[in-house]
């Protein structure tokens, strides 16, 4: 019953406001988190058994009659589902304490679950229009969540985000129309088969350009990134964590790679474009991050830079490159989620995001400081943390594929990344304690607990990286490396 990944959060979201009338805080918190725990357990524990015999295809029946709901679960979608439920759960646990002073908690959890349902739907659909539809579900929920604080900055960021995001989805829809006009179908498998029969390179290139603009806007790759450094820092911390950790990857990277690699098939030209976009994002955003004084803004620029690594790895198109890119996607989701949550703890305690005002907070918030250090070192790629291994795999893949220039860019940019993360850690947590913060206390229980959970995962995956790659990342990378065969061969209904 993989439709539960979409239906359960939706049903819970629909009843939450009613529950919120009875109990303002406790029950909504409990219900929302229990839903996410269930989804995580379902995906992580039973998921691998479900796809043991190849991709699982499900045709839903309603009152004994087959209806047009067809879902597909393969290695790649399972991998994304696990990432979504894991980081989604951590951010939701964090919100128990963090969202306390915002008010409207039942409403917050309802929107949050709809966003999760949108992402899960996008991961499970197997037709092009469904991709667009669930992209919009997640996006509309996220506009409201970015503006949830109702302050001036939040509203401004949400409106800018909305305006650019709508343009992005319009491009996606235009690309879908082109493909629909050519092949007369929307289902991944049928489209892929029809495109092979047609041999229409030029028109597929037009559609690819439209998709690239649309999904590029959603993934905030560099020429299309203007909205992200506003939207992500302004949102409440758990939402920043989910937007940066998950939403840009699901609605940008996942949708793009699924369509480009599995439906269109990766051509050398497309591969080159993706790699250049990735490399430009890595470098430009890393330099922009260096100059930031606002902690969350620095993290936001860093997200653009790290998504660049993911796209660079996947764009390379070799099995190793794809595996490295996907592994980095997962690691970045964990580590960036962690860093946005710790920055939320800091903001919760001190009321500021300005790095120059902080200082010496490690003395008052030792757990948060330690968790932040783990996340920072992980993204910067310091062994033995998880981010090191994924960057290493990407760089090895680049060298093996005979792309030394990109490899050098990736290495140098990761030095730059280490530099600005150490800068952040030193300014915020180390050094003498700023007297203003003498009364600051460690963050409340759930906030600390969720950051510790993510930090432990970063450490654990770093140590057990070989088995993580083998059990989770490799099946996903295999699906992508199979290219068009993955959907034409086994996805037929």
């Amino acid at each position, binding site marked *: 019953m993989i439709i539960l990944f979409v239906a359960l959060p939706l049903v819970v979201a629909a009843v939450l406001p009613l529950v919120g009338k009875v109990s303002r805080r406790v029950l909504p918190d409990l219900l929302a988190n229990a839903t996410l725990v269930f989804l995580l357990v379902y995906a992580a524990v039973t998921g691998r058994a479900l796809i043991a015999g190849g991709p699982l295809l499900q045709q839903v029946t309603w009152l004994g009659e087959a209806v047009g709901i067809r879902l597909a679960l393969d290695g790649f979608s399972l991998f994304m589902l696990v990432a979504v439920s894991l980081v989604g759960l951590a951010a939701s646990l964090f919100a128990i304490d963090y969202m306390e002073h915002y008010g409207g908690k039942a409403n917050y959890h309802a929107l949050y679950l709809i966003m999760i349902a949108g992402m899960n739907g996008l991961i499970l659909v197997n037709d092009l*229009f469904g991709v667009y*539809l669930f992209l*919009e579900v997640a996006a*509309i929920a996220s*506009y*409201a969540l970015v*503006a949830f604080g*109702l302050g*001036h*900055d939040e*509203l*401004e*960021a*949400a*409106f*800018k985000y*909305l*305006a650019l995001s*709508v*343009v992005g989805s*319009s491009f996606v*829809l*235009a690309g*879908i*129309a*082109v493909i*629909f*006009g050519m092949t*007369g179908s*929307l289902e991944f498998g049928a489209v892929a088969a029809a495109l092979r029969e047609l041999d229409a390179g030029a028109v597929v290139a037009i559609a690819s350009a439209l998709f690239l603009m649309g999904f590029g806007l959603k993934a905030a790759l560099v020429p299309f990134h*203007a*909205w992200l*450094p*506003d939207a992500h820092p*302004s949102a409440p911390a758990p939402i920043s964590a989910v937007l940066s950790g998950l939403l840009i990857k699901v609605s940008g990277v996942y949708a793009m790679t699924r369509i480009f690699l599995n439906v269109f098939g990766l051509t050398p030209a497309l591969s080159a474009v993706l790699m250049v976009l990735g490399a430009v994002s890595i470098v430009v955003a890393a330099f922009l991050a260096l100059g930031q004084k606002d902690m969350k803004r620095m993290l936001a620029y860093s997200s653009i830079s790290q998504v660049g690594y993911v796209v660079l790895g996947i764009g390379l198109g070799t099995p190793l490159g794809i595996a490295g890119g996907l592994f980095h996607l997962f690691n970045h989701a964990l580590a960036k989620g962690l860093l946005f949550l710790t920055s939320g703890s800091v903001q919760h305690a001190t009321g500021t995001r300005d790095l120059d005002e902080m200082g010496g907070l490690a003395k008052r918030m030792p757990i948060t400081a330690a968790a932040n250090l783990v996340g920072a070192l992980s993204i910067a790629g310091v062994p033995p943390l998880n981010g090191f291994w994924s960057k290493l795999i990407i760089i090895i893949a680049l060298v093996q594929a005979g792309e030394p220039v990109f490899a050098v860019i990736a290495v140098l940019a990761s030095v730059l990344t280490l530099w600005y993360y150490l800068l952040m850690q030193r300014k915020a947590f180390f050094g003498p304690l700023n007297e203003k913060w003498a009364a600051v206390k460690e963050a409340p229980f759930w906030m600390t607990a969720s950051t510790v959970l993510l930090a432990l995962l970063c450490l654990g995956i770093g140590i057990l990286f070989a088995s993580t790659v083998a059990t989770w990342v490799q099946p996903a990378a295999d699906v992508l490396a199979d290219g068009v065969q993955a959907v034409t061969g086994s996805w037929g209904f």
Partner: protein
Amino acid sequence: MTNAWYLYVFFAAALVCAGLLGLLGKRNLIKLLIAIEVIGKGVSLLLLSTGFAKGHILTAQALVITFIVVEVSLVATALALIINVYRHTKSLDVRNLAKLKG
């Protein structure tokens, strides 16, 4: 068939272009949303005419209806945002929203 398709796509492209130009140049928040709506009209015309030209009008119709539902949700959210912005700044000028820099 292609002839009719050409005509529709021509107008759809014109609508999308008009909307994008409006989105770039206008300063009133409500005008920006109207420009977004115009882009949406272009896209729905493109979708439906594509289905029409392919003889898949029923599917295309289902897609357009879903698209319209999405649009309603989007417009309601955006207008709620605009009213909130107005409560803060007492103005609809997008230039008052320049505190954050891209």
